[in-house]
């Protein structure tokens, strides 16, 4: 299994190497090397040049390939900007965090990869538990009270969530009692093949527990608060990683259980639960978009909104499912751009409060314009990809006009609330010209990364590559959706 080796060996080796090599430049080069190899490998697997073998533990279906691509892409760009981020002059306390930073990044990549390619729900569970454990010290990067509180809340909420997901998997075992699968391992492919014989009551219970439990990680309301605190108080590369890829990793767990339910009559139940969860997330984002005074929290609530939209798309089925899968890709790219530039603003103005940020467009032209463009991308302006994926989701929702009306209503006000904050940050005149911080900005690597990612977003949206579309329709086919 050379592919598995390529995907996991380098991060694993790096964890050890980075721990012993204290020089940050070497640590960075090693991590970047692993990220590049991972990205290339994912690309090869995605485009079909590599056809990895599968067994009871490992699986490379279209869903895995797509999410692996999302993870690699986000991870590569985040790693690329990490060195410049760590080199910024900061308070001394962080030196401790910096030592661990690259080691934890490698562990993060390893755990996420394992979670995505696992065919065994036990393996998935252990891997996603590891992702939580390795992201917690990264959230604690600034080592102040807020960071501590964010880490504690995230860790506690997600642990309870993970425990719930575990109960869900136990219910899945229970549903197999007295069938051919009795006493067998929790292998997803076997469960899908024999889905009809599973006990529907326990299958429903399993879905509820897994969905609610993993919601803490995905950020579906009402289990979102831990996620919001964590993404808004962690350093921006970590926030980008969490919003861009960790949420997707948790989502794949829900999708796996849903995939087991698709051939049975319980699928309708799962769809209703997902639509309720998604609508509630949109509602929460709608309420808080007007309340937030902190721009990083605003971006986090936007994540809640978009993940809600994705879950609604999955629950609706048909063309909306295809839209939701594309939305996963586009949303992850946009979130990286937004968080990286928000990090730049945070560094310059030394505050996460919207009220103490003025006139970004003039003071920091590169960051300002990129942030503005990222904002246009996230509110689904054409020609950015999100416009097209949301259009697909709406097209699927046409069958349920009331739901569509509700979604559009909430999205419109989320857009209004978000633009209020963003335009204030970008255009508001400073209250006191004399006391403005001296900010001069050069084109740096975060701008480069944002620029490439935005171009990628436009390219993917306008000229949807046939490979991507084929992959997404294949996923839909796996979920019993024929377009």
């Amino acid at each position: 299994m050379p592919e598995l080796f390529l995907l996991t060996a380098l991060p694993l080796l790096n964890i050890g190497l980075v721990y012993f090599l204290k020089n940050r430049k070497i640590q960075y080069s090693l991590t970047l090397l692993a990220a590049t190899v991972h990205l290339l490998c994912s690309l090869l697997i995605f485009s079909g040049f590599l056809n990895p073998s599968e067994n009871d533990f490992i699986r490379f279906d279209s869903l895995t390939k797509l999410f692996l691509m999302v993870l690699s892409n986000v991870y590569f760009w985040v790693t690329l900007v990490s060195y410049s981020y760590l080199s910024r002059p900061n308070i001394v306390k962080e030196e401790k965090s910096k030592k661990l930073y690259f080691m934890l990044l490698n562990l993060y990549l390893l755990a996420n990869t394992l979670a995505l390619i696992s065919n065994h729900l036990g393996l998935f569970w252990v891997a996603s538990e590891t992702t939580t454990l390795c992201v917690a010290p990264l959230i604690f990067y600034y080592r102040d009270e807020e960071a501590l509180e964010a880490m504690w809340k995230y860790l506690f909420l997600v642990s309870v969530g993970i425990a719930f997901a575990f109960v869900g998997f136990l219910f899945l075992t229970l549903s197999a009692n007295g069938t051919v699968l009795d006493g067998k391992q929790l292998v997803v492919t076997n469960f899908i093949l024999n889905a009809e014989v599973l006990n529907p009551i326990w299958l429903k219970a399993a879905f509820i527990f897994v969905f609610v439990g993993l919601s803490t990680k995905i950020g579906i309301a009402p289990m979102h608060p831990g996620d919001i605190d964590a993404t808004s108080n962690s350093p921006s590369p970590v926030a980008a990683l969490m919003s861009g890829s960790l949420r997707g990793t948790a989502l794949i767990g829900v999708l796996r259980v849903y995939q087991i339910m698709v051939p049975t009559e319980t699928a309708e139940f799962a769809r209703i639960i997902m639509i309720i969860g998604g609508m509630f997330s949109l509602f929460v984002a709608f309420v808080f978009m007007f309340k937030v005074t902190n721009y990083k929290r605003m971006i986090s609530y936007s994540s809640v909104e978009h993940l809600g939209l994705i879950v609604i798309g999955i629950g609706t089925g048909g063309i909306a499912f295809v839209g939701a899968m594309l939305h996963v890709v586009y949303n992850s790219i946009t979130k990286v751009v937004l968080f990286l530039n928000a990090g730049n603003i945070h560094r310059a103005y030394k505050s996460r409060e919207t009220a103490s940020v003025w006139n970004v467009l003039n003071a920091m032209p590169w960051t300002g314009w990129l942030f503005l463009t990222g904002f246009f991308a996230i509110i689904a302006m054409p020609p950015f990809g999100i416009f097209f994926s949301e259009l697909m989701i709406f097209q699927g929702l046409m069958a349920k006009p009331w739901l569509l009306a509700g979604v559009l209503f909430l999205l419109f006000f989320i857009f209004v609330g978000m633009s209020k904050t963003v335009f204030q940050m970008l255009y508001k005149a400073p209250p006191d010209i004399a006391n403005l911080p001296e900010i001069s900005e050069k084109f740096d690597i975060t701008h480069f990364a944002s620029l490439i990612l935005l171009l990628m977003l436009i390219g993917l949206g306008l000229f949807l590559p046939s490979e991507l579309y084929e992959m997404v329709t294949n996923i839909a086919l796996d979920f019993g959706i024929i377009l």
Partner: protein
Amino acid sequence: MENVLSILFCLTLLYLVVTSRIKTYVTILRIQGVLLSLIMIFPFIEHLSVHLLIIPIVSLIVKAIIIPRFVNKIVIDLDVKRIVEPSIQPFNFLLLSVFSMSVLFVSAHVLSGFTTIEPIPFASAFSAMIIGIFIIIFRKKLIIHVVGFLILENGILLFGTSLSAEMPTIVELGALLDIFVVVFLMGIVINRISSTFAQPDVTALGRLKD
């Protein structure tokens, strides 16, 4: 026999609800650890394979000895006040717990009519989960939250054991939840070292909100 032990397990839960001393919480953690290991040893008696002994022994050591000792040490070292500081009237809490436990027992009985579950261990397990959650919600101290998480985890393990005699690997994986507990406890200890939280109490967790 499994049923008797499960009922005993439920009684410890009720005691947990009415007590307000941290010391009692720790004692009950120990008792639950022993009860769980006893329940988990039944598959071994039936099949007599060494493999089935690992989980009961490990959970006996971790749940009945190491973690309670760790919690005790933290309480002494950090000089935590020895009462749990509830945010709900004790009587109301008891009422709520008894009500939810009876709902669980009745529904487990109904469900056992047409599915293959053993109602008493099943209902006891879910009672432990729900009371664990209640403790997390209705108690203010962080260390008690960790105990609540442990109770929740005990419930999950009991549920896993009641599932099937053969204990699929997934149940054994549940023991990994203990890692979280250790991380929490370490977190509290490190907290104190860097002295960022003056009081390990949730009222201190109020900075982040909208």
